[in-house]
């Protein structure tokens, strides 16, 4: 029962994240969506390792989840830095354009 509950929750989280990753335009929210997605998958995965009846624990999925968490942090960080840099580049472009416009105005 518990495993099914958590499995279904995990899948729903995956779908939520998927939806957000695709439909939301803001990059930060896309990245958030990706994180929710991966959290859902991990929940789903560990729900496989847990057996309420015997109390036995499968260590392989847990190790997989640990790997997955680290990878997802890594991707999140890269994506965040990329979007920050993007914003910076866009700002620089805008500043340059404004400066040019001002110079043109002054020239006239």
């Amino acid at each position, binding site marked *: 029962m518990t495993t099914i509950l958590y499995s279904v929750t995990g899948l729903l989280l995956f779908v939520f994240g*998927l939806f957000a990753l*695709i*439909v939301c335009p803001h990059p930060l929210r896309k990245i958030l969506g990706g994180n929710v997605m991966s959290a859902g998958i991990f929940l789903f995965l560990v729900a496989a390792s847990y057996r309420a009846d015997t109390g036995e624990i499968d260590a392989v999925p847990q190790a997989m989840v640990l790997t997955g968490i680290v990878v997802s942090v890594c991707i999140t960080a890269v994506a965040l830095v990329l979007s920050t840099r993007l914003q910076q580049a866009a700002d620089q472009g805008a500043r340059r354009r404004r400066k040019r416009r001002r110079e043109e105005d002054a020239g006239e």
Partner: protein
Amino acid sequence: MFLQTLQNFMNEAGLSLVAGVPLLLAAGCWARCLRKWSFRLLPLAALPALLAVLLVSPGLEIQVKWFFMGGTMGIDASARIFLGVSACAWLFAALAAGEKFRDDPHRHRFAGYFLASMGGNFGLILARDILDFYLFFALMSFSAYGLIIHNRTAAAAKAGRVYLVLVFLSELAMFTALVLLSARGEVPLAGAIPGADLSPLLIILLFMAFGVKVGALPFQSWMALSYQQAPVPGATALAGAMVNAGIIGWLRFFPFGHVVLPGGGVFFIVMGAAAALYGVFFGLYQDKPGRVLASSSISQMGLVTLIAGYGLLSEDAGMSALPLMTLFAVHHSLAKTSLFLGYDLVDRGGRPADAILAAGLLVPCLSLAGLPLTSGAMIKGALKELAHLGGDAWYVFGAVFLPLSSVGTTILMLHCIGLLRKRSRAGPRGKTTVIAWLWVLSIAGVVLVPWMWQPLREMAGYSLRARTVVQSLWPVGLGAVLAWLWLNAGGRLPGRGRPSADFDDLVRWVHVRFLYMLTLVTDFLDRLRDKIVREPFRQRGFRRFIRSRGPARLERMLGRWPVVFLFYLLLSVVLFMMMLTAAYQKSEVG
């Protein structure tokens, strides 16, 4: 055992070198540091082929596992003959080219294309499986483009363009034919060259594929342009050696004697006869030697097409058509090589005495026309025999048509000699010792080869009978008279007086009308070809579609995340459902 292995190795190495040496030298022309050597070795490139003809026993067949899907190469009787005559033609052309381009700054470029075409030509003769054949054929065809455009003039570029379009067409036809043949399972991949009955579509495809090379009727337009625009050694190679590739193609793909295709036979006969006549009429109106020689090639290759057509009519005819086509190719190659060498001599300012020039040129011309004692007469005789085998109607056709074509050829060749003599008198002078000797040698070849070579000598006896002599003599005589009349009337040679007006008009009217009709047909075919080959990319509709905003907008829409997501979801759900249904069905059946 050891000897066996050694012999195998020698055979493989020897055969590989036939195509390999020219190709290696071609690669050498490309590398800056090797250029000089490659050019110096140019005349030697054809030697391995000649050696192979002399030393390798016919019937040899070798698997070359490492090459292009595991190729097979080998020499059978006809391949040996073709290899021999092509090698001679290439050797002459190479010697002439080495002489002509000695101081040309772009000589390595010419030599590179020349050698690549040579390698392709030898390779396709040796190839015993369809993929290799296709590969070498394509190599030769595309490299020849470089020969044609070598002069880099606008006219050369145009000739090259026409050539390239036609070559593409032929490659496409060949590829389609090969795929169809292979897909029918008759030819395993990298298997032997096929032999089975062919559908009309395949016949037409194969006719197209090799018809371009021999200048068969709707595809003849490149020949006159290219022969005139290519440097003369290049044209020598085109006319003397590369034309034969088309004949080889037909020989390989229509196993004469094993296959009877009455419809295809008639088609070939009609196309061949039309080409033979068209060549003559077209040539008479040309005033450049290269173009006239090209028309003569069209006409002569029309005869080969005719022979092929007869060969497809019945099995017996096929058996005798096979050697005949080979011999015809030899005969034509020898004569054309000699003519082109003469042209080259004149072109470069060689000025032999008028009588010597005329006599020297007359030998191959009369051989082509079929004068008794020449190879032409021997072949015409054999052709008449062949026409017997095709049945009565076709015999009559042959009996009427052959003298006619002899008459035409005579007129055309005399016209050509006239042009060359005129040019010899007018052009600049140059040093031409080597080329002159080559020319003499080639004439000797035209005269002597029929008598020294066993298969042709066998036919000679027949052609020496009195009746045959008369039969083959009168068309030549008639042709000579007509040519004299024509030359006088047309005033092609200066200083012979103006012809009478009405006779001139009449002749012109007839010829022009006839020619006009022919051009109408060929123009239509040209246009059709353009429509098929070029139009899809030319057509405004397609262009407009490409340029229009439709694709751009659609592509932009495909780039939006939600749309991509839509496809993502659709695909996953559909895949899921498909697999689920399949599993469900399987479990139900099980």
